[in-house]
């Protein structure tokens, strides 16, 4: 090796050693990691509430709030109040308050979608201020809220919404955003309560838990959840909870005459846990009767939910997207102004009873 070459190599190493001082470090115990952040609007200002877990001392989490006129100065305001540099890389849940949701999320969403440190986080909205909910999590385990939402999505019939799905729904055409809704119930517990359906960046209206589950059936691959309905046929009466194990949904937009029609086929595999007195599934007649009643109930409720969406001018199912697939001259504006308004809905449900539990309770 010539001397020059050697000097060059040494130079490279030395340079990298010097330049390494320029790399911003974020040593894990010297940053303030936040798990939850809530945004709301208060007196025409943007208000953020942040929950920091105190891992080092194993104490309760800390809630900090700050107000500012725009999201960037909000970060600064928060920084003034925290011991270490504040980092969003471990953010797990983002909550938007009711007021901000109705006012519009555009400002906040534009800011967070530019930050690569924010991973796949859950986004929810809340009845009232997110402060109330975050305050309830302080004495719980640090990831309490995140686990609560994850579990609800996993098997309690809430559609799977996270940051990436949100980007797709917000920036993509032919579909509208929808977020799970959190509230604090009368006993002071945090609880998931239905969903909020958005039009653009504004909250349009909220739907109930049951409707959220129907929405999940029409959107998600995971269809785990419990559907309850009233069986009222012949002499069989009672309210039945049916656990849906898995299934498929198929959505088509077809033209019927000069009207577009959304045809939705649901195939659901269910598990029956309890039946009202008198219904015996061993009997062919009872089984058919029960299946028909359930199929009808799901179909009509789903149709009425779709009509609800239609009446409010929102499309969380993404019918516009499905319509777009086969049409080259699709325009989002045109679709929602002309076609979606007059669309007809037809939901067909097919039920397959997979499990009925062990033993025959009645005999």
């Amino acid at each position, binding site marked *: 090796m010539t001397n020059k070459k050697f000097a060059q190599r040494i130079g490279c190493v030395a340079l990298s*050693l010097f330049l390494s001082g320029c790399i911003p*470090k*974020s*040593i*894990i*115990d010297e940053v303030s990691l936040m*798990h939850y952040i809530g945004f709301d609007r208060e007196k025409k200002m943007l208000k953020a509430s942040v929950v920091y877990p105190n*891992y080092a001392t194993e104490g309760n989490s800390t809630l900090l709030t700050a107000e500012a006129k725009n999201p960037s100065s909000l970060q600064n305001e928060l920084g003034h109040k925290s011991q270490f540099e504040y980092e969003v*890389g*471990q953010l797990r849940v983002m909550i938007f308050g009711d007021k901000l949701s109705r006012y519009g999320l555009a400002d906040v969403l534009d800011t967070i979608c530019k930050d690569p440190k924010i991973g796949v986080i859950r986004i929810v909205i809340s009845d009232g201020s997110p402060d109330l909910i975050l305050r309830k999590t302080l004495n719980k385990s640090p990831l309490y809220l995140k686990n609560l939402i994850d579990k609800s999505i996993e098997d309690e019939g809430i559609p799977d919404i996270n940051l990436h799905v949100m980007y797709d729904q917000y920036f993509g055409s032919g579909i509208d955003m929808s977020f799970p809704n959190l509230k604090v119930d009368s006993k002071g517990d945090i609880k998931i309560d239905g969903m909020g359906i958005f039009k653009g960046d504004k909250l349009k209206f909220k739907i109930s838990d049951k409707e959220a589950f129907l929405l999940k059936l029409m959107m998600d691959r995971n269809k785990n959840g419990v559907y309850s309905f009233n069986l009222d046929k012949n002499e069989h009466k009672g309210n039945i909870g049916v656990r849906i194990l898995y299934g498929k949904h198929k959505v088509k937009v077809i033209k019927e005459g000069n009207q577009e029609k959304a045809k939705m086929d649901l195939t659901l595999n269910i598990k029956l846990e309890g039946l009202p007195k008198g219904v015996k599934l061993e009997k062919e007649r009872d089984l058919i009767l029960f299946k028909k009643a359930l199929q009808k109930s799901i179909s009509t409720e789903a149709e009425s939910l779709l009509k609800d969406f239609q009446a409010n001018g929102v499309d969380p199912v993404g019918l516009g997207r499905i319509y777009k697939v086969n049409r080259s001259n699709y325009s989002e504006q045109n679709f929602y102004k002309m076609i979606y308004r007059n669309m007809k809905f037809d939901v067909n449900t097919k039920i397959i009873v997979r499990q009925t539990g062990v033993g025959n309770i009645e005999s």
Partner: protein
Amino acid sequence: MVKNDTDSDTNTNQKPIVNHSTFKEVIDAAKKSNDFKEIRKNISTSMVFISYFNTLIDRDIMQKVLLPYIADYEPRQNEVLDLHTFQKDLPLEDVVKTSDIKEIEDKIYKGYVLIKLENASDECLLINVSNSSTGMRQFNETENEFSVTGPKIGFVENLDMNISLLRKKLKSPLLVTEELVIGTLSKTRVMMVYLDGITNEEHIKTVRKRLSNIDFDIVWDVSALDQIISDNSNTPFPLYLTSERIDRISYTVSNGQVAIFSDGSPYAISGPCTLLDFFISPEDYYYNWIIGSLFRLIRILGIFFSIFTSSIYVAVVTYHYEMIPGDLLGPLIKTRANVPFPPLIEVIFLEITIELLREAGARLPSKIGQTLGIVGGIVIGQAAVAASLTSNILLIIVALSALASFTTPIITMSNSIRLLRFPFIIMSALFGGLGIILGITILLCHLFNLKSFGTPYMVPLYPFRIKNFNDSFLRLSYKKINKRSDFLHPKLKMKYSPKEREKRKEDINDE
């Protein structure tokens, strides 16, 4: 291959070797040493000089065979003693009659007895009564490459013993040994061993050429030869397999590699070999192939674990806190909260502690070494955590990665793996995950460039040879590994041909 070709001219002009041209000079030079003995005997009119180094010869042979034989001549006063008849009846095998001064000088320093008649010409007799086993240890259990099952015989410091051990394993006329003498001061006997007609001529030629080109003073150990004949001396990786196990070396030789032994070294080196050869333990072949393959895979996994875990810890804790799973955040932060150092210093501190423990354990007698391991491992480790010099999690990581590096059966390779950890830790402290990737890229570029006796070092991976996976990453059943590796270009491909077993279709109930 090109190396050592220009050495010949430098040899000649700076050889400080004593150059005795006459017999008298040789003897005078030898007489300067006190262990050189000269006996004069008067046999039939002529004076006989018997000279030798009494430290080199075997006294038993000297006193029971040679001296009585000479004493036999003393009564025959009338006969004229001449060397020819003397040599003919001598009951010893290695007797040389020569007048070559150079040869005489070489041989008396190897333990030959010189017999010269005073009046006769320059011719004299050299009788080999050297004792090759003086000062050599007799037990030959493997000391460093342990195995639970299988033979535990290893090589010793005696070359002839080693070759005889190898011949006991490979009782084949194909096994050929070629002896060279290397070292201007040590005059060490070095032997290259190969299977004639199986090992490719190219490899034999390369090894022979590399060995004969060596100019060196003392061959301390065969590992010194390893470094001198190496294809690339600027690499942390050993390019030739070093082993003290007979089964390991006989396996490589039977595969078509050339093994090199050196007198005074309990190790043999074998090449050309590949990176994956270093992770083969003879034990793999003593277990069932499923278990053997599993252990081999675990060992290979251990390399990655050993090289990368501590650097990944540094990268994650310094830069990429985003990728820590939520449940791990608590324990990580809690243990690190009281540590005053940045992660780099913390890791280096602990890594060096482990290296110190290992080094101290290796230098100390084995009984103290064990105690030190326990004291160091448990007491220092716990105390370091309690004094919040390091975090608990890091202690586990570093201890495990040290443990993983010890699974490598060949010591030279396990040393290189432990060395590699440090550049990776520094790279990850400088550039985080990017640094680790950069390090991997540089490492791979280096590895793919390496050659062992002119054959590529990374063989089953590059050039890609799917068939060699049989006996590199995995250890398939003996039925499947009956061919020699392609990369060695053996002249005979098949090792053995397993017979098809008759397929029985017996039901267990038919008994």
